[in-house]
């Protein structure tokens, strides 16, 4: 009973968050400007967490995230706009298309290491953008317009919770540990019976599929998508969220995504200085906390249990093990 307490606690917290925002939105207390930003926070959390799975957990430096997001966005847009099929199918197809792109890019390029992989995936992102620009079926350079605006708060909320839960379950499993092992030392990982290519590709495909999910949500919120939006700068933004939050920390990615999105929302009112302050923040975080706000640490169930134990006056760490 006591063991389940933190889970109940987290569920209550999540439901409260959901309800507060829902009430705020329907009562008009949250302005439409902040509504947009809340949705954007959700999408960015999905993007940052999934990039962290590839870059932080598995230790493969990928810069192709905007490309995977574009694949998801356009695949999803085609399903609802061009074919008139339901939104749920758009999510499934968008994720599958991005996963397939991840597989196709991952198989040949994951033999590369470090800088080389970064350059190869960067190239992939650019290829996706240019290809989309030249396919008339998806609108060419003008992109898709008039995608049904079906995304609302519950859909964003469920997607974010789904993403976090999926990645957390993956990390806290033998397969996730295998990914951590190959990040730490790939030669030793091989000697422990880990098929490193398999796990690299797996992390890459899961990350890509989730980026595709973010793309579908993005397309069905903004209703207009253009290939030129999914450029390298978008990948860079996501990377900054991951780095600020802490490479390898899932909670860090959430914190990073929220911080960066909120910061750029506030800075929207002073556009002359926005990029200056943004850059100064980045430099400061790189100088004073290069490992990111949370390092590789997690705010996990175990930690909550420990805190709970301290509050109850008992030793929580015992239960945690």
């Amino acid at each position, binding site marked *: 009973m006591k063991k389940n307490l933190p889970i109940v606690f987290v569920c209550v917290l999540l439901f409260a968050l959901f309800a507060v925002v829902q009430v705020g939105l329907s009562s008009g207390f949250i302005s439409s400007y902040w509504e947009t930003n809340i949705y954007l926070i959700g999408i960015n959390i999905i993007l940052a967490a999934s990039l962290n799975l590839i870059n932080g957990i598995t230790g493969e430096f990928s810069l192709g995230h905007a490309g995977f997001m574009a694949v998801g966005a356009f695949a999803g847009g085609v399903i609802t706009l061009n074919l008139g099929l339901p939104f749920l199918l758009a999510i499934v197809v968008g994720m599958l298309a991005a996963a397939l792109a991840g597989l196709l890019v991952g198989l040949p390029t994951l033999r590369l290491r470090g800088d080389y992989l970064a350059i190869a995936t960067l190239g992939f992102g650019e290829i996706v953008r240019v290809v989309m620009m030249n396919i008339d079926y998806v609108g060419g350079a003008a992109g898709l317009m008039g995608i049904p605006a079906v995304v609302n708060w519950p859909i964003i909320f469920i997607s974010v919770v789904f993403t976090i839960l*999926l990645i957390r*379950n*993956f990390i806290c*499993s*033998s*397969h*996730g*540990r*295998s990914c*951590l*092992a190959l990040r*730490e*030392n790939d*030669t*030793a*990982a*091989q*000697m*422990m*019976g*880990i*098929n*490193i290519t398999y796990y690299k590709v797996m992390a890459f495909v899961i990350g890509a599929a989730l980026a595709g999910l973010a793309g579908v949500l993005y397309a069905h919120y903004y209703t207009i998508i253009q290939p030129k939006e999914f450029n390298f700068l978008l990948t860079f933004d996501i990377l900054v969220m991951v780095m600020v939050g802490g490479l390898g920390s899932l909670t860090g990615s959430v914190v990073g995504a929220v911080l960066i999105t909120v910061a750029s929302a506030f800075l929207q009112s002073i556009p002359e200085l926005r990029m200056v302050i943004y850059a100064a923040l980045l430099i400061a975080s790189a100088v004073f906390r290069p490992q990111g706000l949370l390092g*590789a640490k997690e705010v996990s169930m175990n930690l909550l249990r420990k805190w709970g134990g301290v509050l109850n006056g008992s030793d929580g760490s015992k239960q945690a*093990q």
Partner: protein
Amino acid sequence: MALMEVNKLSKAFGGLVALNNFNLQVEAAELVGLIGPNGAGKTTVFNILTGLYRPTSGSLVFDGHDLYGKHPHQITKMGMARTFQNIRLFDNLSVLDNIKIAYQAVINYGLLPVFFRVPPFYRVEEQIEEKSLKLLEIFDLKKLAQEKAKNLPYGEQRRLEITRALATNPKLLLLDEPAAGMNPNETSDLLDLIKWIKDKFNLSIILIEHDMSLVMRLCERVIVLDYGSIIAEGPPSEIQQNPKVIEAYLGDEEVASWEK
């Protein structure tokens, strides 16, 4: 039949022949020493056996399996494990996780339980954790289970690396200079540990070592490599007297005098 049978193994890196016509037979529960000067090709042998390098020519049969072209992770699952000359632990993971990862070569579950916590997940996870802790207890590392591997003292890192290799449930253990950087006390502990492991886990061991006293006291048979070729093979007492071996280690007297 021998557990490990290697015939006429050669490996060239471009024009450099690192290993030339290397033959090796290891019987079950045998402890073989592999010695030689630096750069003689000892670690190259290990890298070929474990699948990290592909040999230029020659055959390798381990426990009835042909090893040619097999990947390292496949070879591990056939029952071969190794440690490294320069310790390769999963530095930022806990001691327990280091062992758990190795244990996964023996017991694991498919992909479904990863994303949906169906009962096999908890059952297998519990099993992995329990067996890993038991192994850590045997090697007196249980109290350090939650510590990050990189924070362990050097001697214990060595011990953890050996423990981790054993977690994959090997039939043949390859130890690459386990005594490197150890003081005499630690080396003597290591000697007892290796003897004990061999009996307790009923293993064959191939040992690369520069510490001659350790090799002489441990190994039943010693193979001496120099410039990629075997120059002597036999029981330790014979090897110690072999003029070729002395020459390889100390240099030829005449050559030395010419160079002056």
